């Protein structure tokens, strides 16, 4: 009989607490599968954020930090600088990375820290109850934008990937989406590339996942995937935004 | 006889090099086996404002490194003289630069020595060595430390810029000569 599904070894076998239709669980699994594929589980140190995904440290079978809100890139800097042999990644949401932690992410990227950042953008503050995120789209209704995000007073969604790509140092920046199986398969390739750049000693790799929050969006799982596709993609174009030049062999660090 | 702790205040404009003079003095005293402390009044006036440094030299432990009323004042310019001369302890010593302190208000209960530090420094080869002239006058007059110890400190300080050693040593020696013969003494 063909085996069609198995747990990733790097994933602890327990049910996710995430709401039905939330894509955190899928993203966890992609990361775990790639960790297995690259055979790096025993070298990985992950850093969980504040937010719903803080519990990633209960789901991955590797050494994990819990970090303060927005500071994961600083924690990663400390860990990687002191132990360059470790494979260090952070897992951060939009409030964490694109609001309170903008300073840390920009400077970690600019210093070229040899870390990998997974940025989960679901355009809303999930944990605190559905308030506006820096990445909420214009017109999006949240508990703090009851009449929809007003670009006059709240500005436009922050395009973190494009912002970071404007810096000279980062090696790899890509945006993927979780709204369709095809996109999820593409995301898995990108996760793998991001880790491979770190393993090659290249500076700073970054993957932005467009994700859902059915509970706070007030949508069924299927509706939320459609909403992501229809409302978020126009503001957050998918693809590899920055890749290392062809002659960059990296390798300044093991 | 040397007091248990000798408190010296060296003051001037930032850039005059009084902090350096103090460091050379402390270094020389330390090498000669004394306990020393060197405490700069640091601040935004690092360049151009008033800068002063307290040096304490003791046989045993230095107590407070902070000097309010020094035994000895070395004043490079008028603001420094005006600010600190009234605080010098009775029977203290005030060394001042007559080139930049045109109208000194003398203390009746202190010894004063003056020198035109810039002129002496120019004669020694570089006007910027005026701080070494002042240090020389102090050491020449008090013999707090030996010339050898000061010159060793100068050589160590300028080890990376050895070409500056001769002019600094020359300026220092010129200062010592002034200090020793006390020609400029204006004791009241």
């Amino acid at each position, binding site marked *: 009989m063909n085996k069609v599904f198995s747990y990733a070894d790097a994933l602890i076998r327990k049910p996710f*607490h995430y709401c039905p239709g939330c894509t955190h669980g899928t993203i966890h699994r992609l990361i775990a599968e790639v960790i297995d594929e690259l055979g790096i589980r025993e070298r990985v140190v992950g850093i969980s954020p504040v937010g719903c995904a*803080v519990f990633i440290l209960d789901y991955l079978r590797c050494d994990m930090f819990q970090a303060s809100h927005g500071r994961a890139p600083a924690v990663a800097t400390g860990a990687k600088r002191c132990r360059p042999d470790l494979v260090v990644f952070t897992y951060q949401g939009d409030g964490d990375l694109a609001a309170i932690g903008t300073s840390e992410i920009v400077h970690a990227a600019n210093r070229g820290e040899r870390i990998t950042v997974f940025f989960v953008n679901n355009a809303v503050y999930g944990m605190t*109850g*559905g308030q506006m995120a820096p990445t909420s789209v214009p017109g999006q209704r949240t508990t703090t934008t009851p009449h929809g995000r007003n670009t006059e007073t709240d500005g436009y969604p922050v395009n973190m990937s494009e912002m970071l790509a404007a810096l000279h140092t980062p090696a790899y920046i890509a945006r993927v989406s979780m709204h369709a199986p095809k996109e999820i398969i593409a995301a898995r390739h990108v996760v793998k590339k991001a880790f491979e750049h770190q393993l090659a000693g290249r500076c700073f790799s970054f993957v932005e996942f467009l994700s859902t929050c*059915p509970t706070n969006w*007030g949508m069924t799982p299927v509706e939320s995937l459609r909403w992501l596709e229809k409302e978020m993609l126009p503001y957050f174009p998918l693809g590899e935004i920055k890749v290392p030049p062809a002659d960059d062999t990296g390798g300044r660090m093991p | 006889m040397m007091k248990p702790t000798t408190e010296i205040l060296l003051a001037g404009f930032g850039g005059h090099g009084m902090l350096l003079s103090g460091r050379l003095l402390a270094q020389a005293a330390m090498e000669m086996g004394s306990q020393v402390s060197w405490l700069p009044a640091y601040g935004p006036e690092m360049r151009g404002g008033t800068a002063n440094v307290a040096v304490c030299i003791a046989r045993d432990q230095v107590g407070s490194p902070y000097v309010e009323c020094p035994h000895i004042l070395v004043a490079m310019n008028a603001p420094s003289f005006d600010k600190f001369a009234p605080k010098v302890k009775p029977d203290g010593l005030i060394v001042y630069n007559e080139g930049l302190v045109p109208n000194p208000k003398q203390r009746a209960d202190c010894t004063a020595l003056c020198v035109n530090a810039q002129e002496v420094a120019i004669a020694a080869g570089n006007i910027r060595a005026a701080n070494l002239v002042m240090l020389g006058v102090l050491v020449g007059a008090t013999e707090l430390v030996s010339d050898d110890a000061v010159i060793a400190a100068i050589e160590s300080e300028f080890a990376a810029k050895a070409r500056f050693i001769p002019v600094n040593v020359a300026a220092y020696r010129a200062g010592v000569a002034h200090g020793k013969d006390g020609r400029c003494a204006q004791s009241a």
Partner: protein
Amino acid sequence: MEIARASNGTKRMNLPLPSTAQPPFWRPVHSLIIVVGNYGSGKTEVAVNLALQLAGQGLRVRLADLDVVNLYFRSREAQACLEAHQVEVVVPQGPMRYADAPVILPQVRGMIADPQVDCAIFDVGGNDVGATVLSSLHDVLAGTPAHVLQVINARRPFTSTVDECLQMMDSIEKSGRVRVTELVSNTHLLDDTDVSHVAEGVRLTAAVAQARALPLAFVTVPAALSTCADVLALPHPVMPLTRRLPTPWAPATPGGQ
């Protein structure tokens, strides 16, 4: 067994007994009861007391804590009491129980049409914000008949007039994609409640009910007042209410554990 139907909205209960042994007062016609209302209206106390009442009637009751908005005073805090009375409680377990995260368990969807359950009660968070979570369940809720009870406490801000209560109803219905089917009068001032507060609440709730042509399902009354003559004279079903989420400084409620 005499049963008062909520839908007639007028049948008066006979309540001569001590509060711990109240006779059954209300049997739902649908197996799903959704409790909504504004912040602090007393949804959770109503949901918990209702669950205990129905379980006392021999029904198999399961209560889900869907309050993802406010970490404090959630029905999960009455879990031990509920379970002691054979009410199943669906809340995250372990440390997640205390997490400030909007955790909607997959079991919540599962319990909506579970034949093992006579009565599924959803304790929803406050206002339209709390009701948003119902919208994420819209695919399963849309085809399921349910009692949607709006709890009204006339002594709370934003629900002290008929218009405010109607606005609250509209916003909850919009964000949750549900229709309120019945009203519950739950006006109280905690331990300072007296009969006049109950009467004030009934007047308001009845007026709201009239404005939308909805039935008033029942009136809650602090257990200690439930045998007062004025209460007995109310033309509505009465649910004696014992606080199951006591404030930390209150002495332990008898039967609370």
